[in-house]
C-alpha cells in the first residue's frame, strides 16, 4: 500500500503531459548510445571479451597449444607463496609510488612555466612533449646508449665530475630502478603537461584579477585559484599516470629486461615472463587479473578522493 494509492483520485490534478518530454530524453540517450555503439563494440571485442577470456584462463593450466585444463583457484593460491610475484608486486608499487607523484608535480610545474610568455617557449614545449610521441622502444634504446658505462654520454659527463660507474647504471642493482624511473617520468611528463596547459588556459583571466583586487599574492593566487580550477585536470592526470605506471613494461623490458636479478621486474614484466617464456598462460592470466583488480581499486579510490576535491565553475 503506497501513499499515492490512498489519495482520492478526484483530488489529483490532471496528469501532466510528460510523454513528449520523456520521448525527447529517450531519443537523446538513444542518440548517445548510437554514437557510442561503434566504440562500445570495439571495447567489447578487444577489451571486455579478452578480459573475460583472461579471467577464465586464470583458472586453468594453459600453454597455447594444448586445450586449457581447469585447475580452479590453484593459480591464485600459488601466487600467494610465489616470491617472484611479491618481488614484482613490490617493484610495481615502488615504481608507481615514486613515478606518479613526480610526473604529476613536474607536469604541473612545466605547464605553469610554459604558460608564461618568453622567448623559446615553443621550443621548450616541443622539447618536453617530444619524448611522448617517440616510440618507447626507441627511447629506451637511446637511453641505454646514453647510460652505457663505456660509450655512454651521460656516463662520460658524470665521470667528468668524478662519478665513475663501477658498472653500467642499468646493470647495477643500486641504480637500475632509479634509471628506469627517470626515463619513465621523462617520457610521459610532456603529455600530462599539455593537459595541464589546456586547463590553465581555460581559467578565466577575471578570476585572477578578482583575486588580485582582494590582495592575493602569487602563492595565494596559485593555491586558491589555479589549483582548485585545475582539479579536473588533476583528477584525469593522476588517474592516467597511476594506471600507466602500474603497467610499466616497455622501457623496462628494453632497458633492463627486469634485471639485474629481478630488481626492476614489474608485474606486467612478470606476466610476460610467465606467459611467453615459461609458457604458463593460465598463471600469467592470474597475475594480470590481480593487477587489474589492484588497478581498479586504486583508480576508484583516486576517483573518490579527487572528486571530493573537484571544483566546477
Amino acid at each position, binding site marked *: 500500500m503506497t501513499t499515492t494509492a490512498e489519495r482520492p483520485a478526484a483530488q489529483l490534478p490532471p496528469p501532466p503531459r510528460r510523454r513528449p518530454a520523456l520521448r525527447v530524453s529517450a531519443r537523446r540517450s538513444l542518440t548517445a548510445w548510437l554514437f557510442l555503439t561503434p566504440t562500445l563494440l570495439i571495447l567489447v571485442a578487444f577489451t571486455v571479451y579478452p578480459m573475460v577470456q583472461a579471467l577464465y584462463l586464470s583458472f586453468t593450466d594453459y600453454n597455447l597449444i594444448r586445450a586449457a585444463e581447469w585447475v580452479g583457484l590453484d593459480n591464485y593460491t600459488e601466487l600467494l607463496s610465489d616470491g617472484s610475484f611479491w618481488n614484482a608486486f613490490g617493484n610495481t608499487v615502488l615504481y608507481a609510488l615514486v613515478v606518479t607523484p613526480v610526473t604529476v608535480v613536474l607536469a604541473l610545474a612545466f605547464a605553469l612555466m610554459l604558460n608564461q610568455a618568453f622567448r623559446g617557449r615553443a621550443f621548450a614545449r616541443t622539447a618536453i612533449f617530444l619524448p611522448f610521441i617517440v616510440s618507447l622502444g626507441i627511447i629506451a634504446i637511446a637511453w641505454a646508449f646514453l647510460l652505457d658505462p663505456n660509450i655512454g654520454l651521460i656516463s662520460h659527463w658524470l665521470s667528468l665530475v668524478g662519478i665513475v660507474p663501477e658498472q653500467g647504471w642499468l646493470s647495477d642493482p643500486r641504480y637500475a630502478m632509479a634509471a628506469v624511473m627517470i626515463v619513465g617520468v621523462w617520457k610521459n611528463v610532456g603529455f600530462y603537461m599539455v593537459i595541464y596547459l589546456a586547463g590553465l588556459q581555460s581559467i578565466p583571466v577575471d578570476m585572477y584579477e578578482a583575486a588580485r583586487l582582494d590582495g592575493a599574492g602569487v602563492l595565494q593566487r596559485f593555491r586558491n585559484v589555479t589549483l582548485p580550477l585545475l582539479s579536473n585536470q588533476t583528477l584525469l592526470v593522476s588517474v592516467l599516470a597511476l594506471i600507466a605506471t602500474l603497467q610499466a613494461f616497455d622501457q623496462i623490458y628494453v632497458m633492463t629486461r627486469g634485471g639485474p*636479478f629481478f630488481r626492476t621486474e614489474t608485474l606486467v614484466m612478470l606476466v610476460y615472463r610467465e606467459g611467453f617464456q615459461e609458457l604458463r598462460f593460465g598463471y600469467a592470466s592470474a597475475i594480470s587479473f590481480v593487477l587489474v583488480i589492484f588497478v581498479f581499486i586504486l583508480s576508484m579510490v583516486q576517483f573518490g578522493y579527487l572528486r571530493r576535491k573537484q571544483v566546477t565553475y
Partner: protein
Amino acid sequence: MKTQHRRRSPERRARHTLRPLTLVAALAVTGLALAGCTGQGSGGGSDDQPDASGKVTLDFWNGFTGPDGPALEKVIEDFNASQDDVEVKANIMPWDTLYQKVLTSVAGNDGPDIIAMSASRMPQFASQGLFEPLDDYYTDADNDTEALATAAVDASVFDGVNYGVPVNFTPMMMYYNKDLFSAAGLDPEAPPTTWDELAGMVPKLTVDENGDGQPEQFALALADHETVPVFASLLWGTGGSIANDDGTKSTLGDPESIEALDFWVSLIRDQKATQIGMSGADADKLFQTQKAAIEVVGPWMTTGFDEAGLNYGLAKPPAGPSDEAVLADVVSMGLPAGTSDAQKEAAYEFFAYWNSAEGQTTWADGSGFPPNRADVADKVTASPYPAIFGAAEVTDVSKTLLPGVASGGPIMETIFNPSVQKALNGEGSVKDIFTDASAQVQAELDK
C-alpha cells in the same frame, strides 16, 4: 571567491559514479592493464597446401640476422634450384622475436612450416607439444645422417625422441687481441691454455690508467646474461655443472661447482677481470672496441672483429684444473606439431640437402661456422674459421649445456644468470647464493 565554485553534492557524486557509462569507461581504462598480454601479432601466413603444379612451399623461420644470413639463403637458393617439388622461403628475424612469435602463431595455425631454434630451447617447446617427432628422419638411410656430428644430432633429443635436425654445431672459441697482449708484455702467440695461466695474465691485461679504481681495459669480456651461456660452461672446468647428465638432479650446489664459481667470481670481483653486468652484445662491443683482451664467443663475430680492424688470434678456451670441455651451441630445425605428411616429406628433402656435403660446404664457406659433418672439412676453403672451430681437438671435447632438459631455458634465465649477477654484485657469498639456487634448479627439474 569560494562561492563562485559550486562543490558537487555528495548525492550527485554517488549517482555519478554509478552511471553505467562511467562504469563501462572505468572498466575500459582498467582493461588497459591487460593490453600488454593480449595483443601478440601473428606471423605471416604460408601456403600450407601444394599449389596447382604440386609444389610444396615451406616457410622457414630462423634468426640468422648476421653475416650468416646470406650464407643460409644461398643454400636455400641452391636447394630450390636443384628440384621442382619443394620451395623453401627463409623468414629471418631476431631470435628473441622468433621465440616470442612462434608459439602464438603455431597455436593460431598461421606459423612457420620449419622452425629453427637453439637446441637448448627445443626441449621446453617439445614438452609443451609444439614439435613433431622426427625419429623417422634418422632411420631413413637416404638422409645420410650417419655422417653428422653426434653431439649436433643428440642436442635436440628430448625424452628419447629427436625433435630436430641440426642447422649448425658451434663450439665457442677464445678470441684474444694480439696487440693488447704485446702491449702488456705478453707473447701474442701464447694465449692462456689453463685457468692458472689466465689468472696470471689478468693483472697484466687489466689496465687502470687514471687510478680511479675502474679499469679502462679489461682482461676479459664475459657476459652474464642474454648470450650463449659461456659463464655456465665455466663450471665444467672443475668437474662441476648445473645438473647431472640425465637432467634429474641439480649439481649446482656441489663442491666442484662452488669451487669453479668461487674462482670466477673472485677473479671478476677482486681483480676486476671483466666489467660486471654485461649482456652478450655489451661483451662483444667491449672486445670489439679493444677495451677487453679476451672473449669467448662463436664464429658469428669474426666479420665484426675483422671490420673493426682487430689483430686477433683464435684458440681453444683455457682448460680448467680437471676438465677441458668446450661449450657448443647447436641450432636445430623442427616441424610444428600437426605437420601433414606431404609437408614432412618436403621438409625432409630440405633437411637432407642442408646437411649434404654440398649444402654444408656452401654453408661453412659463407658463414664461417664449422660444417656439421667431418667429411667436408677439406672442401671448405673460402674462410679459415670453419677449420679452426671444427678442429677435432675442439669438437671432441665439445658439450652442449643442459641437453634435453625441458626447463633448461627457465633455469638459465630465472635462476642461474640472476644468481651469478647476485654473486658478482656481492649480495651474499657464492656458497650461499648457489646452494639456494641449487634448490630452485631441483624444483624446476622435478616439475
